[in-house]
């Protein structure tokens, strides 16, 4: 097993072991924090597909994160108040079943990513960064001023949604759901990376011309990658909303996009388990520094700066060496 493989194994087991320890030590909040890590990592895995593999720096993934959150919020709030979402042309009821909510979140995020991607991928480089940011901001202002689902106040869901056979209100059980999804999606991401599609995408990132000469349109490759990426981040958004039992336009904020980008870079761009390491590091920093002083964000900034200046390749990249950066 390569060094990166060992690190990945350690990260995967560590993320599982920590909440199990917390359960034993009766520290339920540590389980909640671990769940947050798993969900943010999931969002990061989604972004990593477009950013690491496709070279598409999106500063608008909050759009997908938020749409996933609102898919959960809208479905659950209608189920909570026993009012249908649509009565015409056919009656569509809300639901509290997690699997249904996930599917809706994934589909909604996928459609949104298809629309945003189809338009944004005409640009590249900084223009791509900024046009994705613009779409994110559009959705943010829309959500803030759209009164039907709470506007800036957001939507509270009083009881966490249900998963067959589990009690999702128990912190550890909800963590296990998030963890299982994260592992499944990591497996999927590994498959995509090694598939002919992934290899072509990687080649399109490095030498677009060469891909075109063998008859593959880089635009289509990138669009597919962007849509898959958006769907994964949308799923993470639905879970995050369930973790907090609350959705609000803050999920659409550009800072949310920024934070997802940050945890991917922190962990190591294009590294399979990079987002896991990045999310764990970011959440731990926020938790540990929060009590130091009112001005704790200065220290957060200094740590982030140190990582980007002195630990190139992020946490996984630094630990694993550079050998497998593109593998």
């Amino acid at each position, binding site marked *: 097993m390569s060094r990166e493989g060992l690190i990945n194994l350690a990260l995967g087991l560590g993320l599982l072991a920590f909440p199990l320890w917390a359960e034993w030590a009766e520290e339920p909040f540590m389980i909640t924090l671990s769940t947050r890590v798993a969900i943010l990592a999931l969002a990061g895995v989604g972004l990593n597909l477009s*950013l690491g593999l496709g070279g598409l720096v999106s500063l608008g993934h909050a759009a997908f994160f938020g749409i996933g959150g609102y898919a959960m919020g809208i479905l659950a709030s209608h189920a909570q108040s026993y009012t249908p979402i649509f009565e015409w042309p056919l009656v569509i009821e809300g639901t509290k079943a997690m699997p249904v909510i996930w599917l809706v979140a994934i589909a909604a995020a996928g459609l949104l990513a298809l629309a945003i991607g189809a338009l944004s991928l005409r640009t590249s480089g900084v223009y791509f960064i900024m046009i994705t940011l*613009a779409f994110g901001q559009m959705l943010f202002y829309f959500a803030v*001023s759209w009164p039907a689902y709470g506007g800036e106040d957001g939507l509270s869901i009083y009881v966490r949604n249900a998963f067959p056979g589990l009690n999702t209100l128990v912190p550890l059980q909800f963590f296990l759901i998030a963890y299982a999804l994260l592992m499944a999606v990591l497996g999927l991401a590994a498959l995509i990376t090694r598939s002919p599609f992934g290899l072509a995408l990687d080649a399109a990132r490095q030498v677009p011309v060469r891909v075109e000469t063998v008859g593959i349109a880089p635009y289509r490759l990138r669009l597919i990658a962007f849509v898959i990426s958006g769907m994964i981040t949308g799923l993470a958004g639905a879970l995050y909303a369930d973790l907090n039992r609350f959705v609000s336009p803050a999920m659409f904020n550009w800072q949310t996009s920024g934070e997802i980008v940050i945890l991917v870079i922190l962990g190591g761009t294009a590294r399979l388990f990079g987002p896991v390491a990045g999310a764990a590091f970011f959440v731990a920093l926020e938790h540990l520094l929060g009590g130091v002083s009112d001005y704790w964000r200065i220290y957060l900034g200094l740590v*982030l700066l140190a990582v980007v200046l002195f630990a190139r390749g992020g946490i996984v990249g630094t630990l694993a060496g550079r050998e497998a950066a593109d593998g």
Partner: protein
Amino acid sequence: MSFSLFVEQLLNGLQLGVTLFLTASGLTLVFGVMGLINLAHGSLFMIGAYAAAAVAGATGSFLLASAASLAAAAAAGALIEMVVIRRLYSRDHLDQVLATFALILILSEGTRWIFGSFPLYLSIPDWLAGPVTLPGGIRYPLYRLTIILVGLVIAAGLFLLIARTRLGIRIRAGESDREIVAALGVNIAALYTIVFAIGAALAGLSGALVGAIQSVQVGMGEPVMILAFVVIVIGGIGSIRGALIGAILVGVTDTLGRAMLPDLFRLFMDNSAATSVGSALASMLIYVLMAAVLIVRPTGLYGARGA
């Protein structure tokens, strides 16, 4: 809407656009020359405003305050360039985004640490206060006219700087081929520090000028930074002319959208629905404009290169 109100709103849009240009010009200069995405540009805007507020509070002079904003932001910019930014030129945009995001955290909270959590006082000097009457009977604040004038002077100054001066020649040369310029004996490191300091000074000055009619507080730079990015992306990154045109386009679109969209929707909706739908759309309008421009022209109106 009467014709004179429409003209006044156009003027307001122009004024907002010029204000945006002040902030965006430094950003586009830095990007054009060094290829650097500087998310912390808004923090330099804030530093300028705080320096101006501090000096105006101590001396009562608005001119001294403006000078202080230039000096403080330029000094902060030069320092940041030498300590951090310099290491980022060879990195990809991702690292630049993360590092300059970290700088926002440090500079914002550092400012709050020094000046406290409460907003500071900075106001228009007496000799620029109050409205004047324009031809056509429009009463318009003198200070806003001054901002338009200062913005246009700075735009002209930047054109001249780049087209006519030795520094401008080096900047243009550095944009196209930095190795050759370095081989010709130009100190690239010093050149970059100077350019970054100029960009920072422009941000700082606009912070002081804008701060006088808005609010001087921590976090004031972030919305401005996003708008400045919208402006330079619409205009084409690296182009001063593009930044000016883009800024005016954004300013006019935003102002007219806010003023007219709710009325437009009232034509076919009831009053309160039109107000809320129109306002919601107005707040998204500049992003719609930006997306539309990029879809038609993927490198902005005057953009030359794709990166």
